């Protein structure tokens, strides 16, 4: 098919198949998303981050991110070391590139924990209501009222510093809004006709939740996750800065800022450049999340 025919097929107001309807919906969403300049900028930043993380060994020598070379320590940016070198003579550019992997790993792991936990608590609370709802939401409210960074700090203190414990600590304070969101989405849909039809066909509650309701909850949950990513990255970097996240010699951006702090006045780039990486990444996720939310709001309105 030619481009024009594709377009017509995608924008057909009377789609002939479920597949066509779905692709058409995605295409219209993409069109309104890509018309939004800020959202596209965010999308490109996040895309670039993912590409850098995946292709890190192709972009730079993996050895350079950890190899110490005291003869070349604290050099300013040059053709050999684009962002200069740190206090142990490691190439800062290589460390930023490989740090993208750590950052993405953290957000992916936190997402992989909070989405199932949030759904697991929110879906039954919304679907069954009553005592189950009351108990589950009370627990959620308790966790919602916890100070995130401080609790993460206490957990990291008890479990020992490290990236896994940082992930657990962040996830533990991030899931409650997801449970609330899943509950709210479930409540608006539990009496819908397609759910009643499924009940009449003899579907079990578990099957209704997983096959009918989860697919409808997921978009708003994932948008919320995108919006939260920036906060997760900043919290993780904060834990890294305090020495409670990824441990040396891992090139974690927050820890890199902390080590550059010692030489801030004379070699400003050591602390400044990883901070810029954190900042750009979190701007990217914020813009992407805002854009996705706008598309979703326009669709539901």
């Amino acid at each position, binding site marked *: 098919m030619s481009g024009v025919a594709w377009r017509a097929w995608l924008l057909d107001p009377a789609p002939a198949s479920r597949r066509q309807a779905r692709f058409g919906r995605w295409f219209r969403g993409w069109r309104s998303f890509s018309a939004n300049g800020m959202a596209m900028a965010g999308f490109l930043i996040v895309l670039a981050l993912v590409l850098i993380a995946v292709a890190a060994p192709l972009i730079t020598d993996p050895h350079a991110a950890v190899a110490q070379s005291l003869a070349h320590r604290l050099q300013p940016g040059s053709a050999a070391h684009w962002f200069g070198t740190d206090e142990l003579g490691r190439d800062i550019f290589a460390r930023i590139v490989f740090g993208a992997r750590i950052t993405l790993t953290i957000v992916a792991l936190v997402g992989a924990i909070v989405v199932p936990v949030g759904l697991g608590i929110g879906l039954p609370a919304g679907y069954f209501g009553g005592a189950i709802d009351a108990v589950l939401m009370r627990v959620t409210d308790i966790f919602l*009222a*916890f100070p995130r960074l401080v609790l993460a700090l206490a957990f990291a203190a008890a479990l020992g510093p490290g990236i896994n414990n940082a992930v657990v600590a962040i996830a533990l304070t991030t899931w409650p809004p997801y449970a609330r969101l899943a509950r709210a989405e479930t409540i608006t849909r539990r009496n819908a006709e397609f759910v009643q039809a499924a009940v009449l066909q003899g579907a079990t509650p578990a099957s209704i939740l997983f096959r009918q309701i989860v697919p409808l909850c997921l978009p708003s949950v994932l948008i919320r996750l995108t919006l939260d990513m920036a906060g997760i990255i900043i919290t993780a970097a904060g834990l890294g*800065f305090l020495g409670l996240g990824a441990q040396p010699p891992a090139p974690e951006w927050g820890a890199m800022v902390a080590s550059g702090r010692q030489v801030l006045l004379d070699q400003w780039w050591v602390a400044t450049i990883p*901070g810029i990486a954190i900042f750009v990444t979190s701007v990217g996720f914020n813009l992407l999340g805002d854009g996705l939310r706008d598309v979703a709001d326009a669709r539901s309105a």
Partner: protein
Amino acid sequence: MAVRAAAGGGLPWRGVGRRVLRTLVSMVLTFLGLTVVTFFIGRVIPIDPVLAIVGAKASNETYDRVRAEIGLDLPVPVQYWRYLEKVLHGDFGTSVITSQPVLQDMLSVFPATLELSIPALLIGVVFGVPLGVAAAVNRGRWPDHLIRVVSLFGYSMPVFWLGLVGLLAFYAKLGWVAGPGRLDVGYDDIVAPVTGIITVDALLAGEYGVFANAVQHLILPASILGYLSMAYVARMTRSFMLGQLRQEYVLAALAKGLSHARVVWVHALGNVWVPLITVIALTFGSLLEGAVLTETVFSWPGLGLYMKNSLFNADLNAVLGGTMVVGSAYILLNLISDLLYPLVDPRARERP
């Protein structure tokens, strides 16, 4: 307001009692949840507290005796009950570093945290609310875009990094502000602590030199935290205002002939204050917990730095005590914002 109360068919405070009760119950439950979590953290820590006291060379009898003395041989629920009793009496144990009760330590460092977070909150609200309103009124035009970008940068910025860059630029390079810490060394111990908030103490004592020095130290961290708070407050104000400006009463008020400014700043903003109170309370809470990072960067001897130092000296009592204090402050802020709701929003009073 009087008309509305009459229409509601009862006293303006009807329903408040139940609301307060419900809020209090949920506050108590949240507090208990917090104690369970800190208790749990205190138990899973890999350091054996008995060994820390008796040392590795102690005999088995000594070990068992100390273990019984600190109650570790009791069933877990009993241990929790003892812990809860202590916490409710303000007993968080003794700090290993300072050998003082943790509560006393925290009371002495907390004013420093307040001295930093209160001006920051004021900056955030005083600038954030008008900016958010201005953005909403000019939706889609350049003031809106500018304000959105400024606030986007604010809530995307890692505070510890902004603090370092600020120190580098305004202290090291430009010399406009004083460096880390609360006072220059020469000004230490001139003013006796009354409130513990140095600027206030200096004014009370009439030591204007100390006051000026304290302000010079305060201005950079307070501005940076204020900027981050402003970013969040402006963003939320904008989105609440957009919701209000779409309502029909705005159109009705304009059609009635009220000035645009009056409709925006009195009618629409008046309705926005209700959710904004929660936002402001949350901002204050995040300033208190973010203190761990800012105080580290600025060597500011408040609660955050105290917790961080305790953390790295394995002083678990102090860390958990700090967690309890910040957590309780959080719960208290939630409570205050819940209770302020009906004062600002008449609809919240009439709910059954």
